[in-house]
C-alpha cells in the first residue's frame, strides 16, 4: 500500500509541453507512472512523445482530458501567473488529487485556489512542492526516482532536496519507503503534515514515519500534537533552519521566523514534548528510523 498515489493513479500533466513539464513527464513515464493525458491550451489534438516510445494525447482543456482518459490525478508545471487558475481548472475537472509543482504563485491567488479546491473536496498538494512518489507504484512530480526503494517508511517534508537527502540515506542502508511526500515550502499549502500523518497512520504498510520540517509557521507544532493524540506509529523528526536569522525569508516563501515565532528550536521542542525522536543532522534520521523499526 501507499498514500495518495499508487498503481491506480492515472495522471494528466498540465503544462506538458513546457521545459520542466516535458522533462519530468518523460521521467515519470520511465518510472512507470500511468501518464494518460497532457493539457496545453492551443496544442489540443497533438501528442507528446515519451522517451520510451509511448505517446500521450494532448488536450486544450482539463475537461476534455479527464472526460476522454479517465484521469484521476493531475500535476501542474504551468508558470506562476496561470498556475492558480490551472489548479482551479483541475479541481473543476473531476480529478480528486492535484499536485502543484509551480513555485512563485501569488499567495492571494492561492488563498482563492485553496478555497475553490476545498469547496469541491479536491486534495491539493503544494504548491511549490516536489510532488510525491510511492516506490514501485507511481511517481508524480519531480522527485528523482533512483533514490527511492520500496519499504516500510512513510516520509513527509516541507522541503524538496532535503527530502531527497533523507530518502537517499534511508535507501542507501536498505530501508525503503511506502510513500515520500513533499508538501511544499509556501505559506499556504493544500496538504499539510497532519493530513499526511493521518494517511500514513491508516496505511497498513507504513511502519514508521519521517517528518521533515523547517522554520516558519506552526504546522510542525500542530503536527506534533496530532502525533501524540492520534498516532500509534513511531515518528522521527528533523527541522531545518537552526542557524537561520529571524525576519529573513530563507528561500521558501514560508520559511521565515516572525519575531520570535516559528524558530527551529521551538519546533524541535514541540517534537520532543510529543514523543517524536528528533534528528540533529539529516544523517541521524537513518539511525533513529532503524531504532524505530526495531
Amino acid at each position, binding site marked *: 500500500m501507499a498514500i495518495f498515489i499508487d498503481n491506480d493513479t492515472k495522471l494528466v500533466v498540465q503544462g506538458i509541453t513546457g521545459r520542466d513539464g516535458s522533462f519530468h513527464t518523460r521521467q515519470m513515464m520511465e518510472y512507470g507512472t500511468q501518464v494518460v493525458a497532457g493539457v496545453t491550451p492551443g496544442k489540443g489534438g497533438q501528442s507528446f512523445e515519451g522517451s520510451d516510445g509511448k505517446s500521450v494525447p494532448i488536450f486544450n482543456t482539463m475537461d476534455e482530458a479527464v472526460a476522454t482518459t479517465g484521469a484521476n490525478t493531475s500535476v501542474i508545471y504551468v508558470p506562476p501567473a496561470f498556475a492558480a487558475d490551472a489548479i482551479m481548472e483541475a479541481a473543476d475537472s473531476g480529478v480528486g488529487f492535484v499536485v502543484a509543482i509551480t513555485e512563485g504563485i501569488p499567495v492571494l491567488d492561492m488563498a482563492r485556489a485553496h478555497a475553490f479546491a476545498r469547496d469541491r473536496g479536491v486534495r491539493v498538494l503544494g504548491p511549490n512542492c516536489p510532488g510525491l512518489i510511492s516506490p514501485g507504484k507511481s511517481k508524480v512530480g519531480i522527485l528523482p526516482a533512483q533514490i527511492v526503494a520500496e519499504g516500510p517508511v512513510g516520509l513527509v517534508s516541507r522541503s524538496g532536496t532535503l527530502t531527497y537527502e533523507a530518502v537517499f540515506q534511508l535507501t542507501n542502508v536498505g530501508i525503503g519507503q511506502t510513500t515520500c511526500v513533499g508538501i511544499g515550502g509556501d505559506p*499556504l499549502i493544500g496538504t499539510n503534515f497532519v493530513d499526511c500523518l493521518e494517511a500514513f497512520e491508516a496505511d497498513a504498510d507504513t511502519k514508521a514515519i519521517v517528518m521533515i520540517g523547517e522554520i516558519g509557521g506552526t504546522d510542525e507544532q500542530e503536527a506534533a500534537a496530532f502525533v501524540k493524540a492520534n498516532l500509534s506509529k513511531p515518528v522521527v523528526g528533523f527541522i531545518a533552519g537552526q542557524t537561520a536569522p529571524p525576519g529573513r525569508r530563507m*528561500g521558501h516563501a514560508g520559511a521565515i521566523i516572525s519575531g520570535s515565532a516559528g524558530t527551529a528550536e521551538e519546533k524541535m521542542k514541540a517534537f520532543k514534548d510529543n514523543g517524536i525522536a528528533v534528528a540533529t543532522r539529516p544523517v541521524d534520521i537513518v539511525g533513529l528510523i532503524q531504532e524505530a523499526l526495531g
Partner: protein
Amino acid sequence: MNIHEYQAKECFRAAGIPVPPGEIATTPDEAEAIATRFGGMVVVKAQVHSGGRGKAGGVKLAKNAVEAREHAARILGMDIKGLTVEKVLVTPAEDIATEAYVGVLVDRKSQAATFMVSAEGGVDIEEVAATNPEAIRKLTVDPRYGILPHQAHWLANYLYDDPGLIKQATKIMMQLYRAFVDSGASMAEINPLITTPSGEVKAIDAKMSIDDSELFRRPGIEAMRDISSEPAAETRAREAGLSFVKLDGDVGCCVNGAGLAMATMDLVKYYGGEPANFLDIGGSSNPDKVVAALEIITSDPNVKVILFNIFGGITRCDDVANGIVEATRRIDIEPPIVIRLTGTNEEEALAILADAGFSAYTSMDDVVETAVKMAKA
C-alpha cells in the same frame, strides 16, 4: 519586498484612506523647505525598512522649519539596525485624541487575509497577540467574498463607541483591504490609526510588505523597490533569480533547495564552522545562475571556501556542473571549491566535472566536514 512608509501611504491614499500630506527630503535643506511650505509643527520620520525607528531616534517632532532642518540633519545618514537612513518623510504634526492599531496579513492557518485591530495603538501587535490576546479583535477575510461591510463595521465597532468614528473606521477597513489586495501585499498596517479632537479618523503611519510573487504583475509596486535599502549582493542575487541571505561566517554555501540550504548551514555549524550565507540556486536552474551564484559568494571577502551541495530533482546536476565549469572559466575564483552533487543527471554531471578536473563528493556530511576544515586551515 518591503516598501517605505511614504510609499505605503501612497498606496493607502490611492485606496481612499485619509492620510495626512507628506513629502520626502534627502537633505536638511529640502526638509526645511517642506516644513516651511506646511507651516506649523511637523514630524520628521526616517524612511528605513526596519521597526523601532522611534526608539532609535529616527522620528522627531519639530516646532518649526528650522527645527525640522536640524532633525533631518541628525536623522539622514543615521544607522538604524544596520540600515542607513537615506530619506526622511516630513509631514504635518496631527492633534491626537486616541490611537488604535489596524493591520491585515496573510494568515497561514486560516489560509486567508486576516485583520487584527486593537484599541491600543503604537503597539507591537505580535507582543500584544502573545501577552494579551483578548485586547485584539481578529477577522478572517474569506477570499471568496473579500471583506464585507458588516465585517468592517464589526472591527470598527471594537475600536470606537462614537457612531461617527465607527462609520469612518468602517470605511477605512474596507479601503485598507482594497489597498492590501491591489498592492499584492502580504502585510499592511496602520499603526497608529488616530482620532483627532475634532472627530476625524486618520492613518498617520503606514507599513506594507509586498508578496514577491506579485511583483511580476504589479510594475508600479515593483518600481517602489529601494535598492539602496538592501546589500548589493542581495540585489545581484535577486536579479539573477537566486535566493540569498548574507550571514557572518566564512563558508560560502551554494545549495539547491531552501530546505537543503538551511540544513547545510546547520551542518556547517554542527561541524564547528560558520556559514557565510544562505544561497538557494532554485528550481529549474541554468548555468548562468551558477555563474551568478559564484560571483556573489566570491564578492564576500570573508569567504574562505565555497561549498556546493546539489541534490538533483527539477535542478539537473549537469546544468550545475556546466555552470561551475563555465564560471571558473569566466571569473577568477580564489577560494577553493568543494562539490557534492547527486540526483537527476548525476552521471552526466560527474563526467563534466571530471573533464574539467573537479572531483565530487556524494555524502553531505563528508563535504561539509571537509569545507569547514578548509575554512579553518
